[in-house]
């Protein structure tokens, strides 16, 4: 019965999807509408209009910056959601019932400590080079976040004594939304629209600084949030 139901659900999805995608323009066709409408302008004028050679970054931080703001808010919502579901008061632990501590292997600990500075430099580079090469705030933030997670594993620091002290962590987690608020309002003041960028000669430096600030905010906020998600899920 249950199998039949599952098969019916899958069939109900599969049949219209197969029939539908068969009529789509072939993938890879340069004359398809996906390339001739909005994307054509991005490719043709994107570098000039956004100042970013990596057009994906140009789209994310210029043409569709509002979506990126929404995305930053969604990760923050994930943090708030996980904290709201999992956080609880100090545990009532009976004496003698110490948590079984799994010792980290000294080899692993040594290797992670050894590579940590390189991982950190790589993460920062991915954030800072996002407008020129593949990379950007999110990607770099994930690398830094993974580094923080690794470090808190080998140093054995959980929720009680976290790597980032809690008051600072709260502000760092809000770094993405804050960066968007600052850059957005600055754009409103000098370009007349929220999340707008100043145009004209001499504005290139200013525009680059604003994009860098967004990338840094996204990266730092992302790293702090990933660390906190991990700590919340691991528990005390």
């Amino acid at each position, binding site marked *: 019965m*249950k*199998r039949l*139901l*599952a098969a019916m*659900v*899958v069939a109900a*999805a*599969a049949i219209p*999807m*197969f029939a539908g*995608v*068969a*009529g*789509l323009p*072939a*993938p*890879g*066709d*340069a004359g*398809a509408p*996906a*390339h001739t409408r*909005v*994307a054509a302008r*991005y*490719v043709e004028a*994107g*570098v000039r209009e956004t100042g970013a*050679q*990596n*057009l*994906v970054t*140009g*789209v*994310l931080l210029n043409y*569709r910056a509002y*979506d*990126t703001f*929404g*995305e930053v808010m*969604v*990760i923050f*919502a*994930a943090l708030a*959601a*996980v904290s709201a*579901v*999992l956080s609880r008061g100090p545990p009532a632990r009976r004496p003698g019932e110490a948590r079984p501590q799994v010792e980290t292997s000294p080899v692993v600990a040594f290797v992670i400590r050894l590579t940590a500075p390189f991982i950190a430099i790589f993460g920062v580079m991915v954030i800072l080079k996002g407008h*020129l*090469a*593949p990379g*950007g705030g*999110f990607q770099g933030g994930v690398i830094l976040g993974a580094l923080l997670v690794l470090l808190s594993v080998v140093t054995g620091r959980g929720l009680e004594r976290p790597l980032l002290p809690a008051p600072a962590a709260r502000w760092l987690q809000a770094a993405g939304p804050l960066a968007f608020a600052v850059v957005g309002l600055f754009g409103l003041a000098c370009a007349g629209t929220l999340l707008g960028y100043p145009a004209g000669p001499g504005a290139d430096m200013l525009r680059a600084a604003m994009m860098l600030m967004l990338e840094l905010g996204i990266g730092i906020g992302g790293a702090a949030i990933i660390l906190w*998600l991990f700590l*919340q*899920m691991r528990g005390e």
Partner: protein
Amino acid sequence: MGAALQNLDYFAFVILFCIGLHTLVARPNLLKKLLGLNIMETAVFAFIVTSGMVDGGAAPIVDGTVTGPFASPLPQALILTGIVVAVSISALALALIIEIYRQCGTIEADELKGVG
């Protein structure tokens, strides 16, 4: 029929989507349901990125060393957003699974039926 064969990539994603949907519907384990959901999301991401591909095209990084054609940057930017959204949902789902396990001691849907 010729047009349908050109869209072979899209058919692959539909199959992937259906595998995920079947896992989601048929598996009783909550963790496997979440994995099924992630497979469905991956299928949709792959579908959208493929729709922005150009035959023989380069990555949309215009630094003067490559001259077109470039793949469309728009689907790639969209999917970057989509991935972050999917990660957020997975994080919350995992947190809920942890909480369910703490409260009920199991994460099998059929064993959870009587809980109330």
